């Protein structure tokens, strides 16, 4: 079945599906809006296999466009609203988009990213009086689920963007699996603060539509107290966040003093929340189940979870594979590790992507014979529970987003006074990981760290901004001349990062 039909299969027309800051949409509203977008895209000549860009905040327009694109057999290409216009421009070209859906409020910021002549659909196209009807759109009962449904951009650089190819089957498999282990049903009402363009956010949309549940949407997390108000006001049963979300809730909000009586399921993924903070969360929310989970965009979203009743005995573990996912931790010979031994996490399942778009090199390293080599290093205990200890690839997980270290370094190196630069992540109570850049400068340079940070702020998306820049006489190098980032990470944490 086409995944758009699958996700909307059980949605009750009269039921409120999404509550926004300025209104709400029923399942009938979503179908109606999606039908309109589908017809308008068709009129622009969009059909099976065509890529269509999608840029906007969580909104009826975003949801309708996403479903409409997939319903046409076309490929949805969501862009981050935190990206710089040049990044969006590069991603549009790389994915060969033949049209784009763009929320009006982002038009000014991103106008330069869209090539002249590219058909643009904006949210003012939605007309409550339109006769468009979802049920009158063509329905193909033997739709090939192996076809691409979405391209999800992950860390890459402007010069070499990287997009994961996600099929209709990938989404269905991951959606079913998540619904099963979280035991989601139509009574769920989840607080959504994660953007739908991010695979964790998309998974919330998929699962809650599929179970005929509902979502409360708050764009952004700047005022977490407001998010808590919304959760209480609308009786949210669930929330999903990355480590920085919960670190903020724990340290900087009144969550602990609120009854939060309806909250039952708390989902955490997108990086490692320190065990001590998981414990604090459990104490703060005695009536809720805390699910610590693990995943990657390459796996549609989710790979593993730790059942909440095991938090006492397996604290800090990412658990085991979710239903339908086989997770193994293997050594360099490809054999399962012994308890205590460190190996790489490999995954197999219907949710695993077939590979990256137009990047056989990277695909060949990451996807081998249908097995995803996650690049995450882990140990396994006697009971088979997996503990992530490190990662092979050089990226930083800031606010749950994968940030390419190289992209930050390239940006810093564009400054003439900078001789060498190395970006690393250090544990941070607000960001999950904060970006710290170590640089060496030309001998006579008077360049100040603040000026380097200011430069990055002008060139990089917000979640890529360094928190700190340190000037060194030299970078620690291995015998092969490679920067020893492990040394820099140690140095960063021993300097006692300012934690607010």
């Amino acid at each position, binding site marked *: 079945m086409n995944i758009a039909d699958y996700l909307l299969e059980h949605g009750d027309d009269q039921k409120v599906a999404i509550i926004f800051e300025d209104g709400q949409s029923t399942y009938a509203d979503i179908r109606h809006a999606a039908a309109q977008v589908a017809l308008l895209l068709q009129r622009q000549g969009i059909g099976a296999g065509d890529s269509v860009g999608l840029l906007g905040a969580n909104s009826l327009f975003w949801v309708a466009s996403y479903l409409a694109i997939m319903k046409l057999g076309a490929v949805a290409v969501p862009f981050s609203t935190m990206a710089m216009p040049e990044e969006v421009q590069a991603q549009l070209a790389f994915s060969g988009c033949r049209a784009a859906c763009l929320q009006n409020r982002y038009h000014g910021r991103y106008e330069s990213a869209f090539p002249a002549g590219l058909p643009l659909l904006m949210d003012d196209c939605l007309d409550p009086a339109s006769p468009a009807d979802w049920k009158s759109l063509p329905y193909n009962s033997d739709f090939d689920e192996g076809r691409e449904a979405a391209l999800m951009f992950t860390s890459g650089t402007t010069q070499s963007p990287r997009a994961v190819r996600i099929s209709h089957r990938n989404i269905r498999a991951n959606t079913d699996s998540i619904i099963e282990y979280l035991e989601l049903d139509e009574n769920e009402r989840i607080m959504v603060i994660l953007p739908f363009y991010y695979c964790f956010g998309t998974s919330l949309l998929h699962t809650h539509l599929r179970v005929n549940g509902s979502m409360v949407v708050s764009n*952004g*997390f*700047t*005022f*977490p*107290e*407001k998010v808590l108000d919304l959760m209480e006001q609308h009786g949210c049963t669930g929330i999903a966040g990355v480590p*920085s979300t919960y670190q*903020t809730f724990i340290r*900087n*909000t*009144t969550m602990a003093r609120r009854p939060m009586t309806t909250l039952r399921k708390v989902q955490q993924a997108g990086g490692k929340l320190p065990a001590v903070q998981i414990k604090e969360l459990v104490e703060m929310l005695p009536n809720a189940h805390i699910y610590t989970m693990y995943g990657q965009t390459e796996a549609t979203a989710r790979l593993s979870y730790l059942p909440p009743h095991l938090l006492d005995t397996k604290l800090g573990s990412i658990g085991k594979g979710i239903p339908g996912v086989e997770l193994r931790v293997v050594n360099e010979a490809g054999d399962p590790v012994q308890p205590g031994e460190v190996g790489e996490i490999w995954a197999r399942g219907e949710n695993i992507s077939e590979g990256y778009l137009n990047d056989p090199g990277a695909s060949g390293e990451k996807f081998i014979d249908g097995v995803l080599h996650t690049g995450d290093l882990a140990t396994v205990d006697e009971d088979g529970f997996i503990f992530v200890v490190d990662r092979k690839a050089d990226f930083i997980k800031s606010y749950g987003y994968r940030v390419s270290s190289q992209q930050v370094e390239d940006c810093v190196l564009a400054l003439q006074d900078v001789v060498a630069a190395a970006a690393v992540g250090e544990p941070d109570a*607000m*960001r999950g990981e904060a970006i710290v850049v170590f640089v060496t400068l030309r001998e006579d340079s008077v360049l100040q760290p*603040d000026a380097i*940070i*200011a430069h990055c*702020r002008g060139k990089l998306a*917000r979640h890529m901004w360094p928190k700190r820049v340190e000037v060194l006489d030299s970078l620690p190098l291995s015998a092969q001349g490679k920067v020893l980032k492990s040394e820099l990470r140690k140095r960063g944490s021993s300097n006692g990062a300012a934690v*607010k």
Partner: protein
Amino acid sequence: MGNTEELIRKYIADNILFSKDGYPYPDDASFLENGIIDSMNVLELVVFVEEHFHITVGDEEVVPENFDSLSAMTAFVRRKQAEKESA
């Protein structure tokens, strides 16, 4: 009392916007809508006003009504200072 506003204005320009030309927005411009601050900056602002103006900001006070524009922040700080003096 204009000093409070100027201090906040300068802090945001220097430390959040890294602006060379001061604070280029109207005083009542929403920080959120104009992309001036995000969740990490708002906590930075809280620490700044606590340290600079010797006031204590409760978690429940970190809401848009108090922290979403220069004028809202100024009014909030003045109110807190007045409360402190009368206490």
